[in-house]
């Protein structure tokens, strides 16, 4: 089954995403912030990353850039609940930096799962 890494500092939210993904038979890895995610990241065993953007330690935008360097084919979904950085906001920046999809909080978990499925299906086709 595909392996998904969730990077989110809100513990309850991370737990909810994890529960939903495990229910759909995904293997889930978790990280509390960007720094933790980058130190444990293994390109060969991670297929997709769901990352928050505003986090303590390394923020989500830097994480996206570094993950892209480590594994160019990695699928990344950025999630964020507001905050503004430059024109268009964090999510647009995330997209510009290489996120394959973005979702603004609060989102429906089913929408997130559909996005994950869509991106992983694309990868399988390739």
């Amino acid at each position, binding site marked *: 089954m595909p392996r998904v890494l969730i990077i989110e500092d*809100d513990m*309850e*939210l991370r*737990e*909810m*995403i994890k*529960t*939903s993904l495990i*229910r759909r038979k995904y293997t889930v890895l978790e990280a509390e912030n960007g720094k933790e995610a980058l130190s444990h990241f293994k390109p060969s065993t991670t297929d997709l990353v769901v990352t928050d953007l*505003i986090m303590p330690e390394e923020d989500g935008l830097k994480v996206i850039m570094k993950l892209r360097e480590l594994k160019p084919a990695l699928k990344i979904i950025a*999630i964020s*609940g*507001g*905050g*503004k950085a430059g024109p*268009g*906001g964090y*999510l*647009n920046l995330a997209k510009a930096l290489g996120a394959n999809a973005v*979702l*603004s*909080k*609060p*989102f*429906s*978990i*089913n*929408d997130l799962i*559909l*996005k994950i499925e*869509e991106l992983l*299906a694309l990868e399988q086709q390739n």
Partner: protein
Amino acid sequence: MKDKKDLLRDDKQHKVLSDEHEISESIINHSRSMISVINRNYIYEKANLTFCNAHNITPDQIVGRSLSDIWGTLTFCEFIKKNIDLCFSGETVKYEASFETPGYGRRYFEVTFRPLSVSSKEITHLIAETFDIEESKRRELEIKDKEEELRTFETKLPIGIVRCSPDGQIIHANKAFLDIMDCYNAYSIRKTNLKSFYLQPDLFDIHCEQLLEKHSVTLGRVSMKDCEGNEISCRISGYLSFDETGTLPILDFVVEDATRELMLENRLIQAHKLETIGALAGGIAHDFNNILTTISGYSELLMEDLPPDSDTSEKVGRIQSAVLRAKSIINQILTFSRQFEQEKIAVSVAEVLKETLDFIKSSIPSNIEVQSNILQNDIKVLADPTQLFRVFINLMTNAIQAMEEKGGILSVKMELVEGKLLQHQINKNIVADEYVLMIFKDTGKGMEPAILGRIFEPFFTTREVGQGTGLGLAVTYGIISEMEGEILVSSKRDEGSEFYVYLPVSRNDKQIESFKGIRKKILFIAGNKHESRMLSMALENTGYDLLYISDRQGFARSVSNTGDLPELIIYMTDSKLVKPEDFLIIFQQAKIYTPCVIITNQSYSIFEEKLLNSGIVKQHLIKPVSLKEIRNAIQLSIIKLD
């Protein structure tokens, strides 16, 4: 026969006389005045040395010369003759004149003609004495010039100067004071008491006391009212002086108009306050979005676990609805704090404004009249048209509510203004050379200054609890600020309010390239035609073809033609064209799987709830929705697997 002694005495007497004569002659000759004796024929019979020197002639030469000969016929006839004639009638004549003599050039003189009777009582001669007053005249003129200069200075100075008696009675006021007080009658102001301009007259007494005690006092900013009754703010300093006798005190005041300064200061304080609230609210909103995602996620998981149509699943559905309502409020707070991403396109302001006016007019009470003056169609601004629509709706709805009880006139104007003008008004850097200004004016109940200063704060409302969220103007402020525009307000209790919205004009004429790919067909059932036009404006050039449904039958036809099904259906549940109960029935009868985006109001009916729980709804949005939200919903609904 005189004896020798007599002769000697005569001789001696003669000698004394001649000495006295010589002394007198000498005094007269060396007088600083020109002195002459003139007979009735205007002929000089005698003149002193000063006179002769002035005319470069000897005393012998002057005798027998006429005045017109010496002064010229013109001067003689015009100035001298009448005075001489007056003198011969018995009066002493005195006058000042400037004239030229060969010896001294042109100078100012004081001339005196004195009648002279030598032997008889008849006036046979006159003595003319001409005294050089050039120096004193020059000094006098200098003082006059200085006075004039000071008067001009005082008149032109943009600072009000007013002099009062100790009880406040105005003795003198300069032009600037009259201007500040909006007073056009310089005379009537002298009958006024300075105290009557004070908003709090008691304060004037305190000021006077301070002045009498300290002689020179900076009294600070004072609220005053001008002759028209308008409230103004003035910075006042006072000085104590005394009249010529040195006993009666006089109060001099310097009055500066500080109304604009106060307005700018208040704006700055307000902007800082709103920024602080915004940052705080934005921070809270961010955390709440995390919490809401968790709540909505778990309720979705719960939903999967529960049998459909069960009591419990209905309750979980309500949790999800509550999450959406919370999301809508948070989005509004984020919009206020400028942390909500806006998708901007070049929009014609006039088009959106006209659309809003049409919308408003359809629901306006009959005691309110709408006047509008919107001309330029080609002025474009960078905006999300749905947000701009919201701004206009909010301002017009507020205006109408302010006039609800007594009725009135809502006037909407639109004009172009230079950026420099706005810059002067707000004392702030501006982003564009040109702004489009929209003025929304009502004749409603108006606002007190204390309320006026808080209207843009989120959750500030003067309405009763439960009537409106208090977010309308906060959101309006946020949207306009995000567009780098400005919103200014002026209001007067019982007279009405005026809102000025300035938006930078977009001069980027480059057209957005139209979409070239395969266009996706979206079926759109809007609440009203204005909203649908807004949305079509927003979704232009994005690759979607919007297909509008005008009635129930039309909707049924569009979803039954399986050969040409839409990719997506966007349905606003407050549509009068297709009711929620009909929508569900038609959709289910058609047996299609087209994803639906449902847009509802904050609260909804049982039919709407049934529709939301039916499983056909892909995305549920709550009004007001932004262009960004709609695009996101469309993208999330149309999943591409190819």
